[in-house]
């Protein structure tokens, strides 16, 4: 179950980072803290909004969902079931693809880097790797 615990902790971290970007996008934060210097460029680009909703909010929802699945998978009746781990892999793989696309936009289209976006991308990639490893090792783990 260590992979679900790790996924829960990482998704919680990702949730707060996405919450920060979402609140900033709504104008509820001060200047964006940014050591790379490109955060505002990225967050104000046309790619920062998808279907009328800030991209950061998709991250917020995604990390919240991953967190809930991870926690649910640590509760009694779900602990021995494989389902939550499969769901974690599926959800995080979608997140990885989305994050890869956003990272590509930063590198090749916007030409600016947002450190918080990179943190989110690394976090979701790690959740995917950890979840996949947990799933692959599943028979041994439960034996």
């Amino acid at each position, binding site marked *: *179950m*260590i992979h679900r*615990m790790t996924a*829960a*902790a990482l998704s*919680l*971290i990702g*949730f*707060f980072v996405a*919450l*920060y970007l979402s*609140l*900033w*996008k*709504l*104008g*509820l*934060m*001060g*200047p*964006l*803290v940014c050591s790379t*210097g490109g955060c*505002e*460029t990225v967050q*104000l*680009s*046309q790619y920062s*909004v998808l279907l*009328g909703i800030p991209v950061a909010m998709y991250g917020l929802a995604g990390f919240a969902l991953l967190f809930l699945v991870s926690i649910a998978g*640590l509760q009694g009746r779900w*602990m021995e079931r494989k389902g939550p781990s499969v769901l974690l892999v599926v959800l995080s793989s979608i997140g990885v693809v989305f994050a890869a696309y956003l990272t590509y936009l930063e590198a090749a289209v*916007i030409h*600016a880097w947002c450190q918080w976006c990179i943190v989110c991308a690394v976090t979701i990639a790690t959740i995917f790797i950890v979840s996949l490893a947990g799933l692959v090792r599943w028979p041994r*783990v439960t034996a």
Partner: protein
Amino acid sequence: MAGQVNMKVFYGVLGAIVVIGAGALWMARSSAGGSVTQIIDAPIPVGTSAFAGYVMGSDTAPVEIVEHADFTCGACSNFAILQGPDVKRRLVETGVARWRFRGFALHESSLLPLHAAACAAEQGRFWEMHDSLMFNQRDWIGSGQPLKEFRDYARAVGADLGEYDTCMEEGRYAARIRVTRDEIAASGIHSTPTFDIGNMRVLGAIPFDSVRTLVEKAAAEAR
């Protein structure tokens, strides 16, 4: 395997993440209500090729508030909606301060709304266009057809659309907007909104009371 890991430790780690995350957000939020005030050595001179900005208020007002803003910036929109009317009515119209708006294009998609505002300004409709762009920011950013929205705003504020269209098609102010952006960036400004009030520079949107306090301070220092 699960039994090997103490669940209490796990929930303790989650609790720590929540406390640290919430604390960091609270600090970011409360850092001057979304703002940081710095003292600058001297007013930033405006370069010869850059645009000095759009001015509202009396030339004889003792204090000038210079706002560096981007029409695509959420905090700029919030400031325009929530604090703008008070600033205009209680500081500008009373002759206490003069307002200068300098467009700061943070990225390429900031150029179009600034250009639309410049074309409206040609016809003496800058502030009306400014309000339309700021107040309806969420609409045109999400519309996918911002140029159409800008044109609608230009019509609504009473601009001659023939003139407006020609101005937009020519990209008449594109170079000026870029030069101004470069100059503002060279003066050390990297985020919006940023306000210069006397020798004070404020990063981030601030409530009206803070604007008034800074204006009073700048007026006292100018005497």
